């Protein structure tokens, strides 16, 4: 007996697949890289100063993009973003978050490789394929 749940407009996922996907999600959640990322995010959430630096970096970056699109970009704008970047990346909480994120991004292809080797085709590429192709 297969129960089906609507997940999005295109697909239904059988209970067996949903259960297995959730179990893999739970196993990934318990993996060292993802646990470290969760902890790094919690440290950022608790650090008002670090959050402020990231917010300022996002704002200066958005401003730089806007000025570039308008053709009014000056060397001062670029210097301001670079300074905000340097300040943010030298913060230990932000640096730890970036490192944890990179570790997870390095680990997930390993998991995808295992799944894909068993399937015989690239799972992530199949999941990322846009309807109608790229």
């Amino acid at each position: 007996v297969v129960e089906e749940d609507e997940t999005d407009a295109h697909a239904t996922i059988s209970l067996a697949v949903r259960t297995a996907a959730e179990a893999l999600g739970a196993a990934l959640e318990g993996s060292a890289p993802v646990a470290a990322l969760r902890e790094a995010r919690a440290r950022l959430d608790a650090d008002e100063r670090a959050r402020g630096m990231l917010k300022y970096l996002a704002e200066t970056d958005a401003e730089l993009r806007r000025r570039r699109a308008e053709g009014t970009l000056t060397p001062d704008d670029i210097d301001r973003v670079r300074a905000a970047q340097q300040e943010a990346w030298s913060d230990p909480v932000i640096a730890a978050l970036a490192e944890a994120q990179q570790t997870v991004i390095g680990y997930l292809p390993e998991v995808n490789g295992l799944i894909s080797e068993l399937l015989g085709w690239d799972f992530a590429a199949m999941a990322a394929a846009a309807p109608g192709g790229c």
Partner: protein
Amino acid sequence: VSRVRETAPEPVAGEPAWRSDVERAAKDLVAALSETPEFKAFEQAYLRFRDDERAQQALWAYQEEQRSLQPLLMLGAVSDDQRAELDRLREAWMAESSVAGYLEAQASLSALCRGIDQLLSERIGLGFAAACNPSCCG
């Protein structure tokens, strides 16, 4: 497409427990996925497409034309006639019944994989497929 392997690679001795947990769960997901109608339809459609000589020739002709025009395509310098010929070859390939069936089966399987990716990504707080396909679609 190859058949689903019976076993996942054996965990290396001394590996942390979470690694074997992930490997086991990945293997279980593959086993569940391989039982779905989408997976089975895709495998059958792929085999039909692979064994369809006309479709393979049409694909070859399209890809050859695409390859020869690649430098011009990158420069946006293809003529209308060259573009029309490329489109004609693509349409000829897609008109083959095994191709249409293959693309349809692929789209269904892709939608299912997107649903799985969504579940995984929500759980880990990071896009799973996106992390594995950093250059997808440029």
